[in-house]
């Protein structure tokens, strides 16, 4: 199906129309057939709530607002994915952490659910009732039923190690790895169980599954610590998904190069890299076993740059990534900040339309 764009142009170059819906495009790609252009996803979420005139606090607590935003994003940008995230704190909140919400800012961890002293009290969640999980699942159900025939819909789950950081407080998790490693591992087992329960709901809703695991970045921990405290538990979630015949993707913010040998073995089908890492290197190392997604700088380019700079940055990413064996998806290196100009979001998808044919 042809999607008419508003004939935007950049220095005389008119943006070509899409010839397929994101849903059609994704289906053909999964069948190994040719498509009109490479895929491009906008890394959105709560930071985009102001686009529909919605306070961020309200967005977090309303499945209708979540749907409204996804519809707005799809109708305006026709990017290749829609979906909702548990956010980095969603599962931790369900496990008892206290979260502080703001009207004009991303929510933050206020009081962790556990300390190193009572870590054995880790709560097994009730998906139907705890925290915002039921709201997010309701939102996903609505997004899937409204947009599911036009665009792939997915739910984002938080990696077990990052959930642990939000349950204990990051500093205490990091110190706990050295002071009481066995207790930390017991906690991670409970988190794996909780995540799997949530994952089962995503599978029931027939939406895609992605993971975000920023605290696993080698900006914070060593590759060896990742191998001992993060990877085995993440792998249990991935194995669970694969046992149900499904696949998933992973995004790690910040540096991750030291972890790629692990990630190669994880079974994920897609890896989204931060803009501090190189697409060309990822193409070599990870590209033979998974698709690569990345990595226009979210702050310097997406928020602070001009549309022309976004287009150029997108062009470079496409040039570096497009021949990745398992596929390449253009996106920003991380979630786009509040206040990212819509013209820049258009420019990112337009980069795929112009240079990704």
């Amino acid at each position, binding site marked *: 199906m042809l999607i008419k764009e508003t004939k935007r142009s950049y220095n005389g170059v008119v943006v070509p129309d899409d010839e397929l819906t994101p849903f059609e495009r994704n289906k053909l790609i999964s069948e190994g057939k040719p498509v009109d252009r490479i895929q491009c996803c906008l890394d959105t979420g709560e930071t985009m709530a102001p686009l529909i005139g919605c306070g961020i606090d309200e967005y977090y607590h309303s499945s209708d607002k979540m749907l409204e935003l996804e519809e707005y994003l799809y109708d305006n940008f026709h990017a290749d994915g829609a979906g909702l995230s548990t956010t980095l704190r969603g599962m931790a909140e369900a496990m008892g952490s206290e979260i502080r919400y703001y009207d004009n800012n991303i929510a933050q961890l206020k009081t962790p659910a556990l300390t190193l002293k009572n870590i054995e009290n880790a709560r097994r969640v009730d998906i139907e009732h705890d925290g915002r999980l039921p709201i997010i699942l309701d939102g996903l159900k609505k997004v899937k039923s409204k947009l599911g025939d036009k665009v792939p819909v997915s739910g984002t789950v938080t990696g077990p190690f990052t959930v642990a950081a939000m349950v204990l407080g990051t500093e205490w998790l990091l110190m706990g790895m050295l002071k009481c490693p066995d207790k930390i591992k017991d906690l991670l087992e409970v988190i794996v169980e909780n995540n799997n329960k949530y994952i089962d709901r995503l599978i029931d809703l027939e939406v895609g599954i992605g993971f975000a695991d920023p605290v696993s970045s080698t900006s914070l921990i060593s590759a060896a610590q990742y191998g001992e405290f993060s990877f085995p538990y993440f792998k249990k979630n991935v194995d669970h998904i694969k046992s149900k015949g499904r696949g998933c993707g992973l995004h790690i913010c910040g540096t991750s190069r030291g972890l790629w040998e692990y990630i190669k073995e994880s079974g994920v089908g897609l890896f989204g890299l931060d803009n501090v890492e190189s697409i060309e290197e990822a193409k070599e190392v990870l590209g033979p076993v998974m698709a690569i997604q990345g990595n226009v700088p979210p702050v*310097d380019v997406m928020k602070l740059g001009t549309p022309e700079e976004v287009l150029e940055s997108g062009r470079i990413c496409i040039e570096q990534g497009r021949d990745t064996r398992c596929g390449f998806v253009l996106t920003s290196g991380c979630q786009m900040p509040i206040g990212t100009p819509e013209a820049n979001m258009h420019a990112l998808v337009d980069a795929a339309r112009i240079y990704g044919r």
Partner: protein
Amino acid sequence: MSKEELFAKIKDAVIEMDDETVESLCNEAIAENFDATEVIREGLIKGMDRVGELYATGEYFLPEVLTASFALNAGVDILKPYMKKEVSTKPVKIVIGVVEGDTHDIGKNLVKIMCESAGFEVIDLGRDVPINEFVDVAEKENADFILMSTLMTTTMPGMKAVVDELTARGIRDKYKVMIGGGPISQKFCDEIGADAYTVDAASCVKKIKEIVGI
């Protein structure tokens, strides 16, 4: 145990991140009537210096640095009541905090620890710090540096507001303003007119030393 042996053991215990050993060795130092300030300088801080080096070379990561600083603080808590007030040359004075709207303070804490271990005097405003508080405290304390961090893109404008506030009060040149944190870049630093951006805690200390010429 001689003083030197004890200091070496304290240093090693900090490097080994062993808070219990640090505590018992510091108690021993007090029992031996060693000068508390010297124990901190020659034992604890020497250990933390080495931890900083290990971090800079990638042998230690954040978990080790945090745990070592936890051990260092356990030692300082024991020694503090025994410290003699001494008059020294004016140390480099730093006001540090996480800008308003953000409560992520691991990065800020790390910079604080590294600065203190380098011998700078650090006034920690904590996290979620209102714009005017940075300026008011810097004025009141006669500080040399204002250090700000944020992990969140939404709070980055707060850094610019601090620089603007200094300019508005006509005191911009009295302070060096340094910024850091996940989303911060040199480009952003230039844009808001801050004096320096550094990528991590170790390079922050290096930069401060460079600026003051020590």
